[in-house]
């Protein structure tokens, strides 16, 4: 049983380290920022989750008590990774694609909501549009 737990901890550590390595290798290998964003936000987050899980199992085995610090760190990292990616992508769009001409068309009535007012935005007279009429039929 102890051997199996050790095997589980070692497996989680190795898998997590490999995911960290893949995420950082993708950061230097991929083409431009918008593709580069994929590697750290997905692979690295998964890797750190695996490592924190390994640490949790390790301290259950060593101390005999459940430590909740890792769950706290894990939840925080998993919640903040998409927010970070969103902010980096948005700042990149505003710095380099200022008029939005290099973006693909949205094929909707409104443009990209980073540059144009979205479907729920107030128009020139300050009126907020009601529910969209095409949603009713």
């Amino acid at each position: 049983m102890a051997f199996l737990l050790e095997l589980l901890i070692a497996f989680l550590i190795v898998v997590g380290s490999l995911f960290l390595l893949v995420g950082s290798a993708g950061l230097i290998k991929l083409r431009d920022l918008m593709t580069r964003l994929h590697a750290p936000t997905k692979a690295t987050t998964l890797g750190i989750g695996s490592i924190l899980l390994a640490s949790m199992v390790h301290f259950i085995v060593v101390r005999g008590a459940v430590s909740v610090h890792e769950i706290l760190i894990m939840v925080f990292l998993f919640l903040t990774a998409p927010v970070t990616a969103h902010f980096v992508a948005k700042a990149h769009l505003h710095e380099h694609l200022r008029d939005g001409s290099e973006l693909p068309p949205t094929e909707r009535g409104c443009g990209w909501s980073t540059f144009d007012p979205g479907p729920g935005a107030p128009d020139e007279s300050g009126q907020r549009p009601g529910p969209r009429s095409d949603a009713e039929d």
Partner: protein
Amino acid sequence: MIGFALVFGFFAASLALVFNIWRLVAGPTLMDRVLAFDTMVINFIALIMFWGMQQETTLYFESALLLSMFGFISTVAFCRFRLRGDIIE
């Protein structure tokens, strides 16, 4: 066996940090550097967790938690500054 896995983990996280430093130095745009720094913080948290497991102490968990919070807040504040020219409006 955990010892060998931890040594592998130290090597992998350190190599990942070297990759991040490469992107931090070479990154063509500013946001590349911000992203590389954010990834560096996560890799450093992994190193701290490995160190805590090797020393069999739970002392370093608070530092890992604080580091993750500061990494997130600094990244968001910097992106917000680039977006709006101001952090808190």
